């Protein structure tokens, strides 16, 4: 080589690559791949049943390995996940193509039959769930989806009446695809896959949206106080379900709505009035369910309709109820705040002559008792979809008034304009509030605390998206 002009470009590259000086930057515009996110999870291990993993923390964790056909990026923007396309082929018909070649570990390729079976479980005895209301607009209420299967990767859904919110409803986490396996449990398809070590989830390279940024998630089950201690000691990166004020991250959407369901024939006709007079929702959210909760006065949470405070009714005479048998209040034992709220209700109503016995039960037992109508009082929480019309359907179902859906939903679905439909829903929610044996209490959002070195976005359902999370900075 005689001079600089004869230096070939390849050699120039070869020379320059010998030098490498890396200075970590604070952040950059693209996501960074790799690393392990250590999550302390404060709840009990969720069951492999989409409709039961519905508390925000449970749903967030569950979605790491069980996804549905789509997910919401925002309330009105959906992203196909296990579906490649959701095409509206007629006024009330949608054709859904599943991702080709997607495989569920231990269950083979994903097929339309898996989708039909997963959704049918919501209406089956034993696994009956209020989330079946999301499928109510389908012909046959989504019970006989076998007929809708066009091929192994295509399914055609028709609604019995106009229901423009159907595609968005299908993105609800309770409609995730879960395939039961021999020996109990279920498997699904998500951005992470379970490993032989129960506490470690590895990245799924063939997840249809692309592998997650993280290589793996490590889950530590711990109670709230221990979880926060682990975070302060930097032994975990994130606490799911618990936060201190200093490092609280909360989703902007409070969609996990808790209601008090009652049986008027057991509680007496004055129960609603007595409750409204005795229990202050603002106090409940301030002192008893303080983590990311807002009082809920109407049938739908504040994220879906503006709230108007219920006027307190004068409590009725207590003496009449002295001789009445005690009422049992069932609540979800996996949610510590429900115990506090149940105790508060017990104390406040005691002065009015209500004798209430508290009974913590598992979520599956709670749903079974709900399905059979075997309860006096029940604290019942559901994850509302971020759209008012499907949310109202869910609230009506939760109240045990399945038959009301037939008269209410077609009138709402007939409104093609989303804004008009929303107004209609508000109007019906106000009108139905007094008829339904359901007292709205408060709504919660996903809550977590994390070290600031993690970028963690939320989806349109208000849940953290762990597959889009990655480490930033040093």
């Amino acid at each position: 080589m005689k001079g600089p002009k004869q230096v070939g470009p390849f050699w120039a590259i070869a020379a320059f690559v010998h030098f490498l000086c890396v200075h970590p930057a604070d952040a950059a515009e693209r996501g960074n791949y790799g690393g392990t996110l250590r999550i302390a999870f404060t709840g009990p291990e969720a069951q492999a049943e989409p409709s039961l993993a519905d508390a925000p923390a449970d749903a967030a964790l569950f979605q790491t390995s069980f996804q549905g056909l789509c997910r919401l990026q925002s309330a009105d923007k959906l992203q196909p996940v296990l579906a490649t396309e959701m095409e509206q082929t007629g006024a009330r018909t949608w054709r859904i193509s599943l991702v080709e070649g997607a495989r569920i570990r231990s269950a083979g390729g994903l097929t339309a039959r898996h989708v039909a079976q997963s959704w049918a479980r919501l209406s089956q005895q034993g696994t009956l769930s209020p989330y079946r209301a999301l499928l109510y607009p389908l012909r046959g209420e989504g019970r006989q989806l076998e007929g809708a299967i066009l091929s192994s990767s295509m399914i055609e859904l028709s609604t019995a009446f106009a229901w423009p919110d159907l595609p968005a409803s299908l993105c609800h986490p309770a409609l995730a695809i879960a395939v039961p396996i021999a020996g109990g449990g279920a498997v699904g398809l998500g951005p992470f896959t379970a490993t032989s070590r129960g506490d470690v989830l590895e990245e799924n390279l063939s997840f249809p949206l692309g592998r997650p940024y993280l290589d793996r998630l490590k889950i530590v089950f711990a109670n709230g106080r221990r979880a926060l201690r682990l975070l302060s000691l930097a032994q975990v990166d994130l606490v799911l379900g618990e936060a201190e004020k200093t490092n609280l991250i909360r989703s902007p959407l409070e969609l996990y709505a808790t209601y008090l369901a009652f049986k008027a024939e057991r509680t007496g006709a004055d129960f609603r009035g007595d409750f409204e007079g005795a229990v202050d929702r603002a106090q409940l959210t301030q002192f008893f369910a303080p983590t990311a909760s807002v009082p809920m006065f109407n049938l739908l949470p504040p994220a879906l309709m503006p709230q108007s405070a219920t006027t307190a009714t004068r409590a009725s005479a207590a003496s009449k109820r002295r001789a009445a048998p005690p009422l049992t209040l069932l609540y979800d034992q996996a949610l510590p705040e429900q115990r506090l709220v149940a105790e508060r209700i017990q104390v406040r109503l005691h002065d009015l002559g209500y004798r209430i016995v508290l009974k913590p039960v598992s979520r599956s037992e709670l749903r079974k008792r709900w399905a059979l109508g075997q309860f006096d009082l029940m604290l019942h929480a559901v994850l509302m979809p971020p759209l008012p019309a499907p949310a109202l359907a869910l609230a009506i179902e939760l109240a045990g008034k399945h038959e009301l859906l037939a008269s209410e939903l077609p009138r709402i679905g007939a409104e093609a304009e989303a804004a008009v439909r929303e107004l209609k829903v508000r109007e019906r929610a106000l009108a139905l509030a007094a008829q339904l044996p359901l007292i709205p209490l408060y709504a919660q959002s996903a809550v977590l605390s994390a070290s600031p070195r993690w970028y963690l976005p939320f989806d349109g359902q208000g849940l953290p998206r762990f597959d889009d999370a990655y480490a930033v900075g040093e």
Partner: protein
Amino acid sequence: MRPLLLLLAVGTMTFPQLPTPPPPPPSAHRLALEVAERIVSQGAEAPVAILVRSSSQALSDGFATVLAAALARAQMGPSVLNNVADPIQWARANLVKSLVRLELRVENGQLIARGDLFGTWVNFWSGKAVTRPPQPAAIIRASVDADPEVAAILASSSDRNPFRLTGFASLPLRTAALAAGDLDGDGRDEVVALTDDELVVFSWDGRVLAKRNHRKQPASPTPCREPVGSVVLVPKTRQVAYFSCRLGKAEVLEFEPSQGSLKLVETADAAPIARSGESLLWTKVLPGQNTFGPEFGAKGEPAVSLGQAFWTLSYLLSSTPPVYLAVFPGGTGTLARGGPSGADRWALRELGAGSGLVDFEGRGVPALVTSSPRFHSEPEEVRVLQLTKAPTLKWTAVLPIGLILQVTGADLDGTRRQAAVLGVWMPDGSGEIQVLRSLPAE
């Protein structure tokens, strides 16, 4: 290893901050007070957001500061919007009740502020419909005699801006990779853009010359989470080589200018990342990730390693000696010039993922064009650094809308003076190709 190669660092560089705006001249001050009075008298409801535009950012900032102070004295709870993509949406999201939009200009010796004032409060009974309230709503217009200083600032500021950003082409999806080169031999570069759906060859003026649709091709079993790819052009052989992470494979195509077609020559599993003369240099792709390498080289030749996986590799072969820029995950980068020995190399940090070398002057001296180093920066920033000696910030501007994903240099005029071609990701998910041109000095 030769010691020379180990001691070539220039050091870490952090880009300087912009200076704070100077106080506005007296006429702008008087005008701001007058405008504040009008806003209050028109029944603006607090809190008020202010958006001021003029051809001088410094004057706009100064004017907005004085106006905000005057409105604060009138208990209007003012806030100043700076570089907000959608001011009305911002106002609604931040519970601002009135928005004032003003433009400053000089006409016939008068400094004029004109614009409007309107309510941004949405009645919740409107649902998702973004209705406007009946009041406040007013046209704002005020003027004062302009100081010569203000007149000079507004008259010359557009001329003093050494760069101009213009639109080039739009795409339905955001770009995964961009490249430019003279494929048809007319002396002007063509621009080739890759998206997850197609590969498009644009002429120098933004016309579509050829397309290759790969939407129907099966997706890779290990697809990428975001559109990622690479495009390398070999002008002499009219070859367009590209790798799409969605497809998980590379294709080498031959562009036929007379027919406007792209003919498949070969496919490959590796990704084309650069060229050396007429031969393509290939690199490995990490499955499902947005990074390449770290090794690359020509087929059949020993590969060299960058030591770590990289996002982009940009190069200017017309420079003597050639200059190379590699950007690594995290926004670090290395700039190298010269041959196997005696070259100077710089370690850079705070680079954006959209970074590239552009020879604005056409003299073989590249400038570094880079986006904001922050993730999903709002607003996005484009920065131009001179690389004559140590990298120095020459110009910076805020992108009105969108995020910069790729930067490449292209000689669109046949003058050897390159323009920076930017792949911009728009908020609606679509892609836009924009061109940043250096304006010749007066």
